[in-house]
């Protein structure tokens, strides 16, 4: 098990990516699966950093567990309650028509990973992402 706690700040994202790579270095994982997990983790961490703490500050914790069959990532924060696993699928035609830049990250994460589980417990958002190998 690997654990990392960071300030909710975009400058921490590169460290999160390196933490993931270090955590997965001892398992046999394809480049494509590694990329999918990395992107999903980046999307969810950036989402917490941008939206969980509207007054600034805040921290988040990441835990990575893995075995031969799957990688499990748990992200915890104490910010505003938000369940990304229930966000609706965006309509690309509507996104283009509206000229919107954002709104694709959560959907992208759900598609890249095999499971997306959310619970609110003890004042924390607890998001679990699972990738089967």
């Amino acid at each position: 098990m690997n654990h990392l706690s960071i300030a909710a700040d975009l400058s921490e994202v590169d460290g999160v990516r390196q933490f993931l790579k270090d955590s997965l270095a001892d398992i046999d994982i394809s480049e494509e699966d590694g990329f999918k997990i990395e992107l999903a983790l980046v999307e969810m961490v950036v989402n917490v950093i941008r939206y969980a703490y509207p007054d600034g500050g805040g921290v988040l914790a990441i835990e990575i567990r893995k075995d031969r069959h799957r990688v499990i990532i748990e992200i915890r924060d104490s910010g505003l309650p938000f369940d990304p696993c229930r966000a609706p699928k965006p309509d690309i035609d509507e996104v283009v028509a509206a000229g919107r830049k954002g709104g694709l990250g959560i959907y992208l994460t759900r598609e890249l990973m095999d499971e997306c589980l959310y619970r609110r417990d003890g004042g924390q958002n607890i998001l679990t992402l699972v990738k089967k190998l």
Partner: protein
Amino acid sequence: MMINKREKNSIVIFDIEGEIRRSDISDVTLHQLVKEQLEVGRKQILLNFDKVDFIDSFGVGEILASYISTHNLGGKLKLARISKKLFLIFQITMLTKVLDIHDEEASALQSFFKD
């Protein structure tokens, strides 16, 4: 991220290098560079992704916004030399429905004159 501009047959080519992501601290974004070209009347733009190895949803948004700005002014924005893993992101986000993506720069350049 670094972006270099060159031109071929009046088509503006942006050679992008590095990562297009939210946590990048670049002063200028891809969309801003595309808009600068549109403002001076350059409406045929090719984005060369040969040296791009990572994009996140912010990067997808930048590409989409660049496409929309160009399209709304009657121009054309195309992409070339995207890696297999980046193409996967474009497929998932359904950008392949709206973007004209070419394997090679040469075929992308030719396509500007065929449309």
